[in-house]
């Protein structure tokens, strides 16, 4: 049996055992941050350090997206002056960072989470409310 499973194979072989939701952390206001508390359901599946590292990186990426920097200020002013038509040709800073986040999550899934039978769902698919971690039970031997 192959040690590593591709995500597609996994989906066909395995069933969803549980889902863990990482909620938002509002202690610093309405900025998009997620709680770094390690959920108990994942204790047997993944290393705490690894998990916190992932969440912390995601938090940093979201903070970068929402940061009020001179770049975003200039972008906002330019957009206002052109009656927001400039967004037809270029994408906003936030969208660029969201693409970065999507790539990061995919990379994490491939390298870290899929081999352990877990799957991270991009929070943007859940309205930036939660990070959904699906725990798969491996039934490939029983079939």
């Amino acid at each position, binding site marked *: 049996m192959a040690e590593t499973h591709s995500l597609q194979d996994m989906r066909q072989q395995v069933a969803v055992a549980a889902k863990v939701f990482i909620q938002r952390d509002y202690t610093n206001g*309405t900025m998009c941050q997620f709680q770094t508390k390690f959920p108990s359901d994942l204790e047997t599946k993944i290393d705490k350090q690894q998990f916190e590292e992932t969440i912390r990186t995601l938090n940093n990426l979201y903070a970068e997206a929402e940061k009020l920097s001179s770049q975003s200020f200039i972008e*906002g002013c330019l957009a206002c002056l052109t009656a927001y038509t400039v967004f037809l040709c270029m994408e906003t800073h936030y969208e660029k960072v969201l693409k970065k986040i999507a790539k990061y999550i995919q990379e994490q899934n491939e390298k870290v989470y899929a081999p352990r039978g877990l799957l991270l769902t991009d929070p943007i698919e*859940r309205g930036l*409310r939660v990070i959904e971690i699906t725990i798969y039970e491996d039934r490939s031997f029983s079939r």
Partner: protein
Amino acid sequence: MKNCEYQQIDPRALSVSPQSAQNHADKKLQRPRRKWQVFPGKNRFFCDGRLILARQNGILPLTLGLIIVTSGLFFAFDCPFLVTHLTVFIPVIGGVLFMFVVASLLRTSFTDPGILPRATADEAADIERQIDTSGSSTYRPPPRTKEILINQQVVKLKYCFTCKMFRPPRTSHCSLCDNCVERFDHHCPWVGNCVGKRNYRYFYSFIISLSFLTSFIFGCVITHITLRSQAGKNIVQAIQESPASVVELVICFFSIWSILGLSGFHTYLVASNLTTNEDIKGSWSSKRGAEESGNPYSYNNIITNCCVTLCGPMPPSLIDRRGFLPPDEVISVAAASEVELPPFIPKSEANMCTQSTKDALERMLHSTDLHGLCPSGTPKTTPMVLEVLSAPETKELSLSSGCSHQLARQAVVDPCPPFSKNNRRDSLHSINPAFRLASPSPTLSRSVLVLGEGPDIVFSPQQH
């Protein structure tokens, strides 16, 4: 048609062949549907999901009409006189202001204000599991509030029964649009949409530019009439020569008070990083003398507050209107015994209701009780949804006449009476006093039963 051997499906045969689920599935698979078509809130979508508007948008044409008519009269009747007597820049400035006003208005109306998509069934079940620790069999709704600390200040997060999640701070549920909106300011009927995080800056630029436009037109019309009456005629004659100016004067005079007042109010809100909702509720006013309950979101600097609100990064739309629905999603059973399905509420509820009521009755007679996972091979056609919407938020400030900032009443009236769920609703009433506590109005819960012909129905009738 021979069912046992593979052959190319003849498109003509599809329409002729009997209405089997398989054919339906083929048809549906050929035209994948976009998410806006199954959006649960009360919104209208245009341009294949690119533009969004509230359902009750009757006043938006009036707003547009007033602006266009007044500006049109100005350009047609006042500008020629003023160009010859004053300067050619008058129609130029007027034109620029007019374009800006219309662009901001359309942008405000058609932009997603920051709608939060509803929680998936798994999330809702997870939240309820976390809260319901006693493990009792009777259904108890989650407690309505959760307290968190923001910048060392206690803020209460409310649980939204419609969207099945704890609302993030500054989020409010608009009962007119039936959506939770982030940084909810108010629902503006003049603009035909809610004003929230994503379109507040357009709304602000709309009212500011409209103030300038109305003041400009007012000033120009006064100048026009004055100049005419100075040339040896009296004022009545001047007015008779240019009757359109009177119309403009009247319109501008009455709008200037409200628009200028509104602009001033919103400038104050922007400078102190407040929303209309918070200001009216008095969330952050220091009522207690000893304890300082300031606004935890303010940066205590007017410039910073203005920059954050108006020039901050533009967050993306969270509802993904134009994404495609997954073609054959396996519908998992909700952990909590709640009826769950991807919501399928079409844009015209009334049509669907009458049709679906008939379907529902047929289905109830013919179908078996389906529990548990549906086979993944079964294609999803039109799923059956029972959505029990309880405890509508009367306390939430969805201002129906937003610009005059009155408290909204519970304006939502469901036109489609639930066909046979009255007994369930009554049982909800009796078993759950929490629902009654939730709002003072008698119309507590609202069951919407929308049915289709889908075979994969997860129907857990245990609502207890």
